[in-house]
């Protein structure tokens, strides 16, 4: 064993490190960069959101940084945020993989003078100045239940196929759905199961098949997640259940085009992720300029989308709402399926 190696290496490292520390120069803080961190790469929905953000930022004359980890984990986002802090960005827009796990690193960003706000998938109120919500969560819940009511003919069994069991958004919507179902108008609807497809294609397919097998009287499947609804659509098509079991939920028009055209899914909802990102970009610049600080009642202008006011959010913090969910059906799917 070359005993001298360890000694030599330590010496070299010590010299190098001290040289580096001494030589450490300060990089000038650059504040015309606005960052957005999405949940993971390879997600067209996320790409559209980030694209909208970039469009808005560049429209205002600044530079946008688009980042996402390759796996949808909190650890991945923490590493990226650290890198953004080191680059002294002006603002960070976070689409969170975890409500709470990002709090330490986002607090560090805020202490460094960076404006932090969340978009779409929120983080807890302590980690952000404000949250940009694509649509009122309660409204989404109500709209989906109403759609199920309509498709089932007023009564029958319905089931929900969700994403992962920890997904913040989905769980919020499901809670509102359950609350809406308590209304006497929907008393003849029976929610038999909530299945979790983990936003994985194959798991969503298995869960959908299990739902259909276990509940032969099932009338409607509500899938408030783009992967789940597409998977359910395929399963229903393969089993030739179109017309007997109906599907609705939140889906990407490109993914659901086949199923809407065939009637398996009479109609579904979503919002335009481009607009969500675009709105976020104006929130970012408004925070940095000081036009808003994230308190209820503050107003700002969001480019082509118009004026917005900050409202109280269900989790104790504040939020900005984009607008009502958008309905996709046979009449408009052709036009939207190539957009996103």
């Amino acid at each position, binding site marked *: 064993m070359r005993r001298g190696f360890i000694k030599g290496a330590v010496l070299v490292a010590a010299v190098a490190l001290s040289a580096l520390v001494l030589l450490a120069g300060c990089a000038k803080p650059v504040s015309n960069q606005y960052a957005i961190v999405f949940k*993971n*790469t*390879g*997600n*067209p929905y996320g*790409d559209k959101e980030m694209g909208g953000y970039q469009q808005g930022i560049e429209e205002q004359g600044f530079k946008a940084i688009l980042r996402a980890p*390759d*796996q949808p984990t909190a650890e991945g986002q923490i590493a990226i945020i650290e890198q953004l802090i080191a680059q002294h960005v002006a603002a960070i827009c976070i689409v969170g993989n975890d409500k709470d796990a990002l709090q330490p690193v986002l607090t560090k960003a805020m202490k460094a003078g960076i404006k932090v706000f969340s978009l779409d998938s929120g983080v807890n109120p302590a980690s952000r100045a404000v949250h940009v919500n694509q649509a009122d969560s309660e409204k989404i819940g109500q709209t989906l239940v109403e759609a199920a009511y309509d498709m089932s003919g007023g009564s029958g069994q319905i089931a929900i196929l969700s994403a992962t*069991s920890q997904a913040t958004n989905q769980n919020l919507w499901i809670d509102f759905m359950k609350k809406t179902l308590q209304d006497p108008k929907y008393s003849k609807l029976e929610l038999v*199961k909530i*299945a*979790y497809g983990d936003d994985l*294609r*194959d798991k969503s*397919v*298995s*869960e959908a*098949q*299990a739902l259909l*097998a*276990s509940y032969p009287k099932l009338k409607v499947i509500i899938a408030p997640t783009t992967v789940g609804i*597409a*998977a359910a*659509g*395929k399963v229903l*098509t*393969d*089993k030739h259940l179109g017309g007997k079991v109906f599907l609705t939920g939140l889906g*990407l028009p*490109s*993914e659901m*085009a*086949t*199923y809407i055209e065939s009637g398996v899914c009479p109609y579904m909802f979503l919002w335009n992720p481009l607009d969500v990102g675009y709105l976020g970009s104006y929130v970012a610049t408004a925070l940095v300029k000081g036009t808003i600080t994230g308190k209820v009642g503050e107003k700002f202008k969001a480019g082509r989308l118009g004026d917005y006011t900050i409202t109280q959010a269900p989790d104790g913090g504040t939020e900005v709402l984009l607008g009502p969910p958008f309905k996709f059906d046979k009449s408009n799917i052709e036009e939207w*399926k190539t957009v996103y």
Partner: protein
Amino acid sequence: MKRTVTVVERFRELGLLGFIVVLAVIFQLRNPVFLTLSNLLDLLTNTAILSILAVGMMMVILTRGIDLSVGATIALAGMISALTVSSFRAISPVVSVLEGMAIGTIAGALIGLLISRFNVLPIIATLGFMNVIRGLTYVVSKGAWVSSYQMSDGFKAIASGGVLGITTPILIAVVINVAFAYFINHVRTGRQIYAVGSNPEAADISGIPRRRIILMVYMVQGALAGLGGVIWVAKFASAQSDTAVGFELSVIAATVLGGVSIAGGSGKVSGLILGTILFGMLNNALPLINVSPFWQMAIQGIVILAAVLTNVVVKRNSQRLALRRRAI
């Protein structure tokens, strides 16, 4: 001697078969929907892809190797064939399948070269390639997905078409398993695979082209992964860059469950089929019997451990029996 070996083999398969029967009974009691034709067909279709890949994995493991990159290969082959179909709608599905298999074969060949010619350890070569291939999938697709409306009906029929309700993937899986069983038991090159894994040095000395066989094994594995990729993408009518993440572990688990020894050199196709079916059963039945999704993972792990330990204990007992017989 031959009798002893057959006794050992039979025990292993019997153990697995018994396990499957017991589990099937339990599942059926909890939800009588389990043993219906439609559910069983679903089960088999979902397991078909796993089975196709398990065949390739068995060959790799027989040679003392392992392949962690199959998930990534599925994604890449599936994505490229889907992209091709979305640009050239008129392509025949057969061409798509061949295209996928070609891509998989190339990936497999590169890995096989690293392992056979450059003596890189399989776990390292496939670990590294897993990342590279998945990165390539993303680059090739530019992060976009290929959706159902972009695929031709013929393409989607690769997975949903069928005869008398038996879907195409099941037929393909059956054909491949049968061909593989014949190859590994009755064709000389197939038998040589066992030799390479059992004792590589002896194989070398006896003139068996060890390097070529290892290269071939990984190429076939790649081709099968490519085939699986095309079926996968057709089945879900969607190609994404995070397709089949972690799937390699399921394939390895199913193969090992079937009694294929990680140490190389032993394993039977019958065991492989049983192992794959057992694994597929778990995936299908647990949602049916309303096992809380949070228990599913733990149960899968326990079943794998139990099956593998049972194999070991059974094998030890039969060896002891064999010894005793010799002593007389």
